[in-house]
């Protein structure tokens, strides 16, 4: 009972929207934690696109290779996020700011 | 047939509790009364849905999983309610204040 949009395409287009939202968030705010959060949103958007394209024929089930690579991608994204968060915490304790120096708005 | 009817009744009431919990969360004036609404939805809402599904589940292992999910949800709801309530009690000094409203 494929309605006008088959299941996988809805999730694919959602993934595409998430990529845009995440990149917008990554570049639009100077707070470093928000940028890392936005980076994770882009990552999960890309994985949704990847997973959706692996499920184009529901009768055959989901393609195992995208699933495996997405799990690998999630763990790599987690390691990068963990290093980034520790760097941000260290940067904040050393220079008392939650942003990169060139984004600092002293006048606010 | 009876089991399906039972499931429909139980899961339906479960949903109603969830709705009640959410409405409570939105309408009640202060943090503590909202906390009360939240625990209702957690325990009863989920509990009823799980009870409704117990009869649908093919193997005892899955039934065991359902019970375990319910037990964990209760444990988590209780602990969260306690911790969040105490943390909210000292509201103001310790809770990290919202950053400037740009």
């Amino acid at each position, binding site marked *: 009972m494929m309605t006008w949009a088959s299941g996988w395409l809805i999730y694919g287009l959602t993934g595409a929207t998430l990529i845009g939202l995440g990149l917008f968030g990554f570049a639009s705010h100077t707070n470093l934690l928000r940028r890392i959060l936005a980076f994770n949103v882009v990552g999960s958007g890309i994985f949704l696109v990847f997973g959706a394209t692996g499920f184009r024929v529901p009768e055959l089930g989901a393609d195992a290779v995208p699933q495996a690579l997405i799990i690998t991608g999630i763990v790599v994204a987690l390691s990068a996020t963990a290093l980034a968060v520790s760097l941000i915490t260290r940067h904040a304790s050393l220079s008392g700011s939650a942003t990169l120096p060139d984004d600092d708005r002293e006048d606010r | 047939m009876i089991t399906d009817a039972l499931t429909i009744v139980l*899961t*339906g009431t479960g949903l109603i509790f969830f709705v009640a919990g*959410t409405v409570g969360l939105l309408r009640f004036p202060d943090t503590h009364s909202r906390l009360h609404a939240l625990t209702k939805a957690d325990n009863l809402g989920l509990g009823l*849905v799980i009870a409704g599904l117990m009869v649908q589940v093919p*193997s005892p292992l899955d039934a065991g999983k359902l019970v375990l999910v319910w037990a964990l949800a209760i444990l988590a709801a209780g602990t969260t309610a306690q911790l969040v309530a*105490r943390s909210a009690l000292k*509201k103001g000094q310790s809770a*990290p204040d919202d950053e400037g409203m740009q």
Partner: protein
Amino acid sequence: MSVWFTSLAVLLLITLAGALIRVWRGPAPADRMMAAQLAGTGGVAVILLLAAATKNWLMLDVALVLALLAAFAAVGFVKAASRNGVGDPEADEEAAP
């Protein structure tokens, strides 16, 4: 039956959306955390209904993981809200009643 389970799941999702309004509006951080907690439990319920709708009972494992880690975010929040970032509300009460 599966139509019943799926429509119930849709209604539950809409209830979740309601809870998220509290996350958006909730004045105190505790309110937001509680709403997230309710959303978590609602999510577990949605997963259970999906498992019933598709008769794919392996999905129960995901509900199990979410139920197990439900309190994890709350513990993280309480730690962040404690005075020195590493305590808990009761330790803070002891230290400064």
